[in-house]
């Protein structure tokens, strides 16, 4: 019987959504467009090129997607999910901070802050799964 790509997706909808959104965001930045050409993105463009941002988001999102797909098959997958979610939270928070530095009243500040908070929730879920996996592993080793 073919297994689904994300076997436990229904219990981790937010995380799957964030992982895919981050990867998609990176892919969008890697398109041959000038997404950071607006004056409001001057701080972001100053920090790194659009390609570099795209690479960061895409690799982070891909890492998150892959380890979500692995989830459960290896007990340490939750730890990597946690770091991937933390990475995306940092990236979104950096973008929120960069837009805030240009214009604190920008809607982008709210949008990227919300995305950063969502990614932080994913961190919490991944950490909770990690604790469960570690406890199960300990129990399995103790009764093996």
């Amino acid at each position, binding site marked *: *019987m073919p*297994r689904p790509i994300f*076997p*436990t997706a229904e219990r981790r909808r937010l995380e799957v959504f964030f992982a895919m959104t981050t990867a998609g965001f990176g892919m969008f930045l890697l398109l041959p467009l000038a997404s950071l050409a607006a004056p409001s993105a001057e701080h972001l463009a100053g920090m*790194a*090129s659009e390609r*570099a*941002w795209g*690479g*960061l988001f*895409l*690799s*982070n999102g*891909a*890492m998150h997607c*892959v*380890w979500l*797909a*692995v989830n*459960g*098959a*290896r007990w340490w*997958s939750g730890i*990597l999910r946690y770091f*991937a979610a933390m*990475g995306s939270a940092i990236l979104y928070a950096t973008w929120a901070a960069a837009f805030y530095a240009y214009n604190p009243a920008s809607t982008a500040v709210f949008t990227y802050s919300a995305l950063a908070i969502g990614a932080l929730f994913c961190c919490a879920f991944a950490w909770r799964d990690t604790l469960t996996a570690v406890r199960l592993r300990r129990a399995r080793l103790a009764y093996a």
Partner: protein
Amino acid sequence: VQDLLTPENLPATLTAFAAIITAIGGGVLWRSRKEPPKAGTQDAALTALAENTKAINSLVVAVQGMAEGLTNQNDHFDANNAMFKALIPAVSGIARDISDIRHDMADSKLHLSMIRDAANRRAP
């Protein structure tokens, strides 16, 4: 580390690091999908359910075969009943004949006794 990791190459380094972790994840995913599902997981439950469904389907086929066999057997019983019913008149006739034979035998016995008595009387 400060010489190796500069603000210029930081994004590329982080991207490469994430890409390596992704590649490792891809390898783990490839291997893990070939492994049987762990006991107690949702995958294991789904696999067990699928196997149960397969077994039930086989059972349905077997029960259908059994039902068909029973129908055939029922037809045979019907044929046997018809045959037994057809035998009843013949068996009744045989019984009547046997009864007649018994009566005839009784008569014969009587005649034989009479012959025996007559023969005894005439004996020297």
